[in-house]
């Protein structure tokens, strides 16, 4: 007996002993249900696709959605370009400021400069002296100190009116611009 014959006999024996199914109908139903499930899954994907992208089948909605997307991209690009330009312009206004602490340089406005010119021009023909900035500052400080002392004196000692008048006249005479011999 060769091998071929052996296999044939075994196959015959297997074929003659069929399995006994306990619930034939249930098994059939289960097989059929699973086959339908695969079909349902394919239908659900189609339904979802149709639900999400069904708009693409209508030409006018398709056009509108595409236009909206292009518009959004366009707005984004335009905004970025405008912002970049504005920032570039702003960068031209960059300055490097000096630390202002203890900076006692006077901030002269246009009017101050004009008045200074006028004073300088008016005084130029008169008898005049030239003084340095530090001397001028010292002079001003002395004047302010004198004025403060006068106020303190007035408050502390309650000077008689005629003395107050005398001091005031004296101060006024000293501060009369016609009598000052300064050249700035």
């Amino acid at each position: 007996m060769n091998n071929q014959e052996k296999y044939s006999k075994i196959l015959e024996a297997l074929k003659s002993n069929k399995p006994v199914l306990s619930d034939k109908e249930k098994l059939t139903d289960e097989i059929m249900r699973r086959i339908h499930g695969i079909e349902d899954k394919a239908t659900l994907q189609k339904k979802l696709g149709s639900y999400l992208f069904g708009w693409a089948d209508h030409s006018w909605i398709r056009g509108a959605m595409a236009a909206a997307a292009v518009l959004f991209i366009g707005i984004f690009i335009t905004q970025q370009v405008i912002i970049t330009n504005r920032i570039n312009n702003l960068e031209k206004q960059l300055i490097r400021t000096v630390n202002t602490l203890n900076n006692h340089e006077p901030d002269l406005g246009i009017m101050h400069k004009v008045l200074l010119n006028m004073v300088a021009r008016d005084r130029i023909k008169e008898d005049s002296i030239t003084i340095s900035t530090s001397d001028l500052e010292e002079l001003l400080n002395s004047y302010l100190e004198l004025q403060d002392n006068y106020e303190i004196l007035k408050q502390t000692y309650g000077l008689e009116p005629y003395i107050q008048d005398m001091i005031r006249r004296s101060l006024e005479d000293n501060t009369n611009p016609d009598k000052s011999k300064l050249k700035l």
Partner: protein
Amino acid sequence: MFIFMILLFSCDYETHVINTVHGDGSVTRKVIVKNSEKKFEPDEFRVPIDSTWQTEISFDVNENNDTTWILTAEKYFASVEEINAEYKADSGSNREMQRSAHFSRSFKWFTTVFRFSEQVEKMLTVSCPMSDFFTDEELKFIYLPNKVQADLQNGPDSTMFKEMADTTDAKSEQWLWTTFARQWIEIFYDLFGDDPELTIEKEEMMLKVPRFVQQAVDEEDDSLAQFFIPILGEEFYYTFETEIDSSVSVLEDSTDIYFSVNSYDMEIRMPGRIIASNGYADTNPDSLDSGGILWTVKGDYFLTERYEMWVESQIPNYWAWIVTAVFVLFVITGLVVRSRKGKD
């Protein structure tokens, strides 16, 4: 003379205002005032500061042993309206200035843009814009903070900047006297324009402005007669002597505000990234002023024009970016699906 010099060289109450603007429109305002004395007089403050502010006084001594007293005041304002209310109730040295703050927030889908501005209304009624007298370059130089102007004149290209400073000074004088001349004419015709004896029309008088300016620049005598007679003639002057005197007094009153204005520095710090402004950005990392946009507030800027210090900033709305990206992908996918269907 002395009063003028004191006014001219007075460096006390050097003031730096910092407005830190928040996204909801609230503002934290910090004011730094430097003085040579420890005592700070409230009526000398350049911007309103009262007892509702948190204040602190410190001092600094420089290499010459000069002591500078520094008052730091800070207050949180829920909105710009509260700042404006303080401006209206101001009793400081700049109380005559009509100042106001404005804030707006605009949603622009991908970004939200914030705009904050402080405005000072013009002091005179007449129109005499600086742009009629100065070139754009000169205007830029004029609007630079004083300290920066001085820095430029002492730094590289100093000759060019000194020349520009001289040019702007000369033109400034012309601009200022033109403004005053126009304002005087405005006042004179407002008050006495109906006088039957007045034969010169206002427009004709306006044509004499250059002569007024020339006279103001050349004149060395203070008397009104010597000023007006060469321009308007003896007959006109003596006919309207009282009216001229009155209108000059009114002019003096209206320009008093200009003379009384004390300059100060303004800085605005914004939420997000600053994208535009008419101020100047500080690049000095050691400076106290870094982080914001800077302006100098001085009377010249708002004599005949409203002065607005404005700055715009933006914050990106990242959620809008994501929504847009999802939408664009969705549309592209839809179009691809459709094209595949068509092929099938």
